[in-house]
Structure formats: structure tokens, C-alpha cells
């Protein structure tokens, strides 16, 4: 569920539609400037404040989605 929304944000910001759950952000051509936009989109669209270090440590849709889910699990 969150993974679908994360993937949609990645596809929009990376301007490609062939991203799978385990693709590496940097291998997809991602750069830190795009990461800043994704960080902003996570706040606005998912209500998740994800530190940049976590975005770098979790460079796939699958892993960052799991991280975001762990955040919301804590707040619940």
C-alpha cells in the first residue's frame, strides 16, 4: 500500500515508469537533488518525515517503504 505510493513518487521524480521494488535509486540515475524532492514529497503526500540518511541507507522502494511503515507503527 505505502510501497505503491512510494513507487509512484519515485517514478514521477525520476521520470521513468520501469521502477521495480528492488531497483537502486542511484543506479536508476537518481541524484541527491532528486532525493531532496522525494523527501519533500514524502512529507506532503505521506505525512512521513524521513531523514536524508535513511533515504540513502534505504535506496529501494521496498526498503524505504518498510522504513516509512515502521515510522507510522511507532506513531500509532
Amino acid at each position, binding site marked *: 500500500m505505502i510501497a505503491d505510493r512510494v513507487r509512484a513518487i519515485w517514478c514521477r521524480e525520476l521520470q521513468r515508469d520501469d521502477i521495480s521494488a528492488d531497483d*537502486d535509486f*542511484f*543506479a*536508476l*540515475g537518481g*541524484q*541527491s*537533488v532528486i532525493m*531532496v524532492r522525494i*523527501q*519533500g514529497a514524502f*512529507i506532503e503526500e505521506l505525512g512521513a*518525515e524521513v*531523514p*536524508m*540518511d535513511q*533515504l*540513502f541507507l534505504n535506496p529501494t522502494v521496498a526498503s524505504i517503504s518498510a522504513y516509512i511503515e515502521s515510522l507510522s507503527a511507532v506513531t500509532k
Partner: protein
Amino acid sequence: MILQGKRVALPSAPVVHKQFEAHVEAAPDALAVSCGGEQVTYAELDARANRFAHFLVARGHGRGAKVGVCLDYSVDMLVAILGTLKAGAAYVPFDPAYPAARLQLLLGQVPGLALIVASRATAGMVESAAAEVIGVEELPGRLAGLPATAPDVPVTGDDLCYAVFTSGSTGTPKLTAVRHEGWFNLMNWLKLEYGLDSASNNLVVSAFGFDLSQRALMTALFCGATQYLMASRNFDAMLAYRLLTEHDIRTVHCASSTLYLLVDWETARGGDALTQLDYVLFGGEPLKFERIADWAQRENNYCTLLHQYGVAECTDVATSYDLDGHRPCDQDIAPVGKPAYNTEIHLLDENLRGVAPGEYGEICIAGASVGAGYLNGSGPENEKFTTVVVDGEPRRLYRTGDRGYVNEAGDLVVAGRMDAQVKVRGMRIDPTDIERALGRLAGVREAAVVVTYTDAGEAELTAFLVPAGGELAEDDLRNGLLQTLPRNMVPARFVNVLRLPLSPHGKVDRAALVDSLKNQYAGSGTAA
């Protein structure tokens, strides 16, 4: 054409850590550093740095030694830096976010590296046959019992304080060293010219390896203020903005591209923390004023923007321009202003003769800030440090390779390069360095890297590759490079070509490569 900065007398021993120690004496309980949950006063930071200095001196790493610091932003980083200076040694910053292969390549370029401070997690990446690696986690135990007072080490303005890596043109990064006098002069100029004082708390937002980060780390401590650090390995606009909002931070030093990101963050979310700053000191690449125009011209924007120019070889900043009224004046290019104290800007022709006012010349820097040159070996770059005679007096100066002129207001304007050196997001890039890394990847016969511009006018790198066999996949190339290069050196685009175009002199014709992109779909593909 010479621009002469104001002559301001320096102390007989212009030594950076002595200035810090004066604040320790005057206000020992003032807050020196705040990082994440950790806060230390001037007295505590001084005592810890003194113990580390004694530790270094006792191991024979005192005056003239070089100490590697491979740490994330933390109180310990400043303990290591100040302790190194107090021991009379110079520090070399290593960014722990770099891949191990890159750190190893850089370590191999530091002659006489004595010791490296690293965290337990990164110690393996900086293991070296020549230097001892000390885990920062072990330091409290090792330093216990050492004196909390400063060791008696005579340090002069000519001693080295730090050395940072910059790009040359040979494919190997150059390690450029600067002297206490130059660093002291830089921060003394910022302090006096812009009225920085014990309230001028600063937030560091740039990566540790940059020359500008050394000044960003030390200026607040030079002025008696509090240094705020982000407990983050990567630039984090969200965290930075949160800190700017929650604390009384007055200054930020950054690359132009980082200023854009902070401005974007504030604009998208409607805060005012940036507009409430006293100063943003920024530069490193030509300002695209339109990127910040709406923000800069906001009502109630109290932040003074200082557009600055300089090179690592001459201790970072050489000139500064106040974007008064937040307009870059009527010209297309925002000027970089007038020289720092005790600094001269010479505009010279190819025969090292001064050009007439208004004419283009090579920007050369003379004065207190001229550094000690490159520590790693001889090369054509060393010839850029030279001596000219002005009014019968010899002047040591550094030829930056940047092209510029002085406008009617007497401000320096930077207008491109004399050579092919490129900058991407404020960082000097040597395309040969990247081409070598590409050449080591399987399936690559030849490679050329050029700087290109996005539709938004941002500089980025494009790699042209001649495959040895079948066409090379973009993702494989990126993955390969990410093993050996920092992320900001990995090209944004990869283009397979059948051959690299050559100029009449037999060199790769980079202009033809850039032109070839204009005639085709802007992405991965086959050209030429």
C-alpha cells in the same frame, strides 16, 4: 589590473586555535558546539582538544605532522580538528560517505600521513599500511589522564593548518595545503568586515571534504559563537531547516546549489527561518539569480547574501560581493566583489602582464591567503604558483585558471575558465579522473566526460563511451562507478558512441561531443 584588499594588521602569530583559546578564557561556559543531542561548552571542547593534542605529541605526531580525520559531523570531529591544530599538525578531512576505494585512493596521496581518526564503522575503509587508525570510540579511554591544558607547541602563521583534495587535470586529485596565516586572515576578515561576534551562531550544511566546510566549521568558534552541526552524513534540507527554525542560528556558508535547495524548501513550505538569517555566504559556481529571485526579493527578507569567490589553493574565499537589495545589479552575471583583507586580485594576460581595466584576464590571487601548494608530488599544476614583479616588488601568486574582468564599480566578475576545468554543483571535477574510472569498467574501450546543462541550466556530467563489445547498459555503468567514485562524480547521462571525435591536434574534441547531444534525443542512445 590589480584589485587591492584592505591592509589589516594580523597578530605576530596568526594562529587559528589561539583565537579559539582566547574565547575559552573569556567565556568558558559559552556553548561551543551543538550536534544532535550533544552540547559542549568552550571549556569542555578546549579540554578535550588539549588532551587529544597531548596524545598526538606523545606519539610523535606534533608540529608538521598530518592527521586524517574521517568522521561524521560530531563534537568529536571538532575535538580532533582543534587537537590536531594545537599539536602543531595539519588535518586532512576525509568524507566517510565516500566509497572505500575512493578513500583508499585519497589516503595514498597524503605524504607522511601519521594517523587517522575514524569511527569503528568506517575504520576498515581507511586502513592503511602507513598510518595508524584510531577509533573515535576508543578516544575517551586513551585520553583519560592526559593534561587538559594546551601542550606547549610553538605554531606560526606559516605552519600548515589543513589540506583538502581538489581536482587537478591529471586524473589524480591534488592535495592542496594552506597555512594558519591564510585561514586566520580569512576568518578575521569575515569577523571584522561583517561584524560577526559571539552571537553569530552558524550551521554547517556542506560536506566535510570541501574547502568551504573547513571555514564553515571554524568561523563560529573563531568569533566566540556556537557551531551547530547536523547529525547527518548527507545534506538534509529537512533537518537543516528544522535546526534553523528551532535555534538562534545567524549564518550559513554553502555552495550556490545548496542555497537553491534551502530556498526551495522554505518557499515550498512557507517558513521564514532563512530570511531571518544575518548572512548566507555562498559561491563556488556562477549564481543563477532567477533560482532565488522570488525568495530574495520577498518583503521582510533580512538575510544579507554574500556572493563569494575563491579557490582551495588560496584558503577558500578571496572576494565577496553583497547582493545589496537582493538584486544582482543590471548585469547578467552577479559580480563576486572586492578582495578580502590582505588579498590582491591580479588580472593577467598569458605573459603574466596586467590587463587594462575592463579587459578580460586570468584571475590570479596574491597575499596572505596564498597556500603552501600541493603536497602530493610534482605536476604541471605546481607551475600555477608563480612569482611576478609588481612595482619592483616580487609577489607570490596563484594562477586560478579562471577568467574575469573588473566592472565599472570596481567589482570582480568571473566569466568562465581559461582551460577545460569543470564544476558541477560547486565541486571542481577533473573529467580525466572519471574517465579513468570508466576505463577500468568491463566492456569500456574509451570514455570521455563532458559537462552539459539541463533545461533548467544546471550543470551535469555526460559520459560518452566506446564499448569494447556490445552496447553498455546505463545502470551497469552507474553501479560500477558508484563502487569507486563519490556520487557527485558519477555522470547523469551515458551515451554509447562508435568512436570519440578528435580535434585536428588528435585530442578528444569535447565541443563536438557536446554539440552531438543537441542533435539527438537527450538520453542514452547511440551517436556519432
